[in-house]
């Protein structure tokens, strides 16, 4: 099967999955009690029937569910995700405003997690059973055992409050209004705490995965062959062991990118990072169903694309893997 037809087939599948996501989540979010009208009434502190009625009419909440679903589906088919109830802006705009922040944070976290995890895993795999190995195992399990939100708060407490090294939250320095390079640097500094917090949890997985793979690969015959060729240990490790050990990491990185798109709710919340995670949290608590559905759809599409990219990367890294098999 050639790569292009494969990609085509996968894109069709993405569309199908997205439709399933839309249908399922449409009913799912409707299961939750209350609607946007009640939220607004509650928050405004004052309400009467006219207020509620006009809100419901405006949002189409007074129509039968199948009608709402049909209207929604036909709009989505035309690329219109509707309008956020609470924000009164097109859902697409609302999400696109936040998406870059989330992608930025998560890309950074992914890089940190892979770099740190692979380094830890390699260190551990060098001598399985040694003190270094045990230390790495314990350390990675420690990362894995900490609640992310708490780790974030502790990092904030230590590095921002006690040591004063890093800004505790936000995307950039409040009120500074930097531009250009200064601004990029400012954002980068703000990204360190949330990014590393996010990364540590996954770093543990990469470390374990790398360690296992390195040890497994090191026992394979082709490594023996490589040694029999008389090439140096460094080359054996790099060209033969690591190269093969990294292949399973690609799958995991793909899986992780899926989690990262919508999974950073807690860290974004703790660090007030203006991303999709905080948006999703708001959407749930305000029953902003179009927004919530929009987030589901956008993440579904993104995750599908990430998965596709992962598969392609995998097929490049491992020539044995044929796309579509």
């Amino acid at each position, binding site marked *: 099967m050639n790569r292009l037809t494969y990609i085509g087939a996968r894109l069709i599948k993405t569309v199908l999955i997205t439709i399933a996501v839309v249908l399922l989540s449409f009913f799912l979010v409707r299961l939750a009690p209350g609607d946007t009208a009640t939220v607004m009434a509650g928050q405004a502190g004052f309400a009467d029937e006219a207020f509620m009625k006009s809100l419901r009419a405006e949002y189409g909440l007074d129509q039968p569910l199948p009608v709402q679903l049909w209207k929604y589906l036909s709009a989505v088919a035309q690329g219109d995700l509707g309008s956020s109830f609470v924000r009164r802006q097109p859902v697409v705009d609302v999400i696109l405003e936040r998406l870059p922040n989330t992608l930025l944070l998560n890309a950074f976290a992914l890089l940190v997690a892979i770099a740190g995890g692979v380094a830890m895993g390699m260190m551990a795999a060098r001598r399985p059973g040694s003190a270094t190995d045990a230390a790495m195992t314990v350390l990675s399990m420690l990362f894995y055992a900490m609640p992310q939100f708490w780790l974030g708060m502790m990092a904030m407490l230590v590095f921002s409050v006690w040591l004063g090294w890093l800004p505790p939250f936000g995307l950039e320095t409040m009120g500074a209004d930097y531009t250009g390079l200064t601004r990029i640097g400012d954002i980068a500094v703000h990204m360190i705490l949330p990014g590393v917090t996010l990364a540590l949890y996954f770093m543990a997985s990469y470390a374990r995965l790398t360690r296992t793979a390195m040890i497994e690969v090191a026992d394979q015959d082709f490594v023996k062959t490589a040694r029999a060729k008389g*090439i140096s240990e460094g080359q054996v490790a790099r060209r033969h062991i690591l190269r093969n050990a990294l292949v399973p990491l690609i799958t995991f990185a793909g899986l992780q990118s899926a989690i990262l798109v919508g999974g950073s709710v807690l860290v974004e919340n703790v660090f007030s990072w203006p991303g999709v995670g905080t948006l999703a949290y708001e959407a749930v608590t305000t029953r902003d169903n179009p927004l919530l559905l929009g987030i589901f759809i956008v993440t579904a599409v993104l995750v599908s694309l990430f998965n596709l990219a992962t598969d392609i990367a995998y097929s490049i*890294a491992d020539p*044995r893997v044929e796309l579509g098999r």
Partner: protein
Amino acid sequence: MGEPLIDIRDLIVALPPGADRAHAVDGVSLTINPNEILCIVGESGSGKSLTAHAVMGLLPRGVTASGGQILFGGADLLRLPPSGIRKLRGRDIAMIFQDPMAALNPVVTIGRQITEQIRAHRAIPEKEALELAGGLLAEMGLADPKALLKSFPHQLSGGQRQRVMIAMALSLSPKLLIADEPTTALDVTTQAQILKLIKRIQTERAMSVLFITHDFGVVADMADRVAVMRHGRVVEEGAAAEVLGNPKHSYTRALIAAVPRGESALQPVAQDKPLLTVTELSKHFRRGGFFSGSAAVTAVDRVSLTLSRGETLGIVGESGSGKSTLARCVIRLLDPDAGEILFDGADIARMTPGALRPLRRRIQMVFQDPFSSLNPRQTVGEIVIAGPRAYGEDMKEARERAADILRLVGLNPETMNRFPHEFSGGQRQRIGLARALMLKPDILIADEPVSALDVTVQAQVLKLLDDVRQQMNLAMLFITHDMRVAAQVCHRVMVMRHGQVVESGPTGTVFAAPSSDYTRALLAAIPGRGKLAPV
């Protein structure tokens, strides 16, 4: 004969603490002379492989050469610093391994893997190294070396891969080539080609080969000199003709005797009404899923056969010939796509599971892999009585019968309370046989029952199968890739290739006067054919 190329003296290889014995190699002394092939032959656990690995300085983690010397070019390889031995590896001593798929890095191109070795020892540019590599591949008899250099290992066949391995090993014209069971993972015809190739280049390049094998047939084909190893020691050593023709040690004699000669002694059983008649059986496999299109592969293509009480029908073929699929269709582990299977007058090809159930117990099977065919979480007793219990037999009665059957297959009934992992491969095959016999079957299907066993054990199991067949008047369908084994136990054979029957007939006739080229090729490829004295 002058100075030996390599001189192994009192080599001791120690196993890690906690292993079942202290030394895997226990005081081995061997010499390999220039321009000769030394075969080390032995069964599994004899220490033959570790001896070879010790020469390369490639002992597995935890295993150490704790004593003795390996002298090569005036230096003791065991005392050389890692960098010193590394310089020798690949340049002066090269090695090829048993499974060429596993021995090649799956994510690196063939070309790169060869040039890597060349450039580790010679400072030449990649392009030049690639040209050298191409030349080597051509020399190994591989077509289109240019394309091969760019391919990945999985795109090659087993034989091609082993040729690539040999090309790589020869790339720096080593003085010694160590071949560790280089043909065990290959089909018999491919094996013959590779053996021929090694022999040819050894002669052409006048180098030495240390050839590790378990097969005396291969020894007969290859060796100038032979060393027989057992339990980490060399029990007999000498010129090939001497050892093969006039073995001194009883173990050597037993080993040689156990090698099937590939000549049939059994006469066909008188054909009365067949118990099983398979007609025009076909089975296709669909590959891939919803989006990847569906290419059907025909694994069994209109195969017909008959089987009578008391006879053994051998189904012979190389890997992928469809023989196992055929067996699994007959026992309805797979549902055939076309054809009929008449068993005692009833067509079981399309029977529903419910209707099939009473007939099921009358066809039983012995599997290939003694390690995966027994449930590791059940005791031998549980395994053996599972069948009768499934048919509602009383527990106590079943256990009593199990004791008898275990005795029949040569096991102590007390083994019932133990778990499979406490047994050797041969013993496990006996347990598997006992399990099948518990249901008092009419037909026994044996799917490569001895291919994973050492040759001496193999002989015992084959004898047991034949005894049981006679005692219980079984009809046996015997699947094997080994012509020699088929010759030993089958009354009739059927040769399969690509899912089709190539030829069939009484074993003696087929072996003596094969009617097809393929059968002829198979017979010709039997290692050591005609070189071992008849028993």
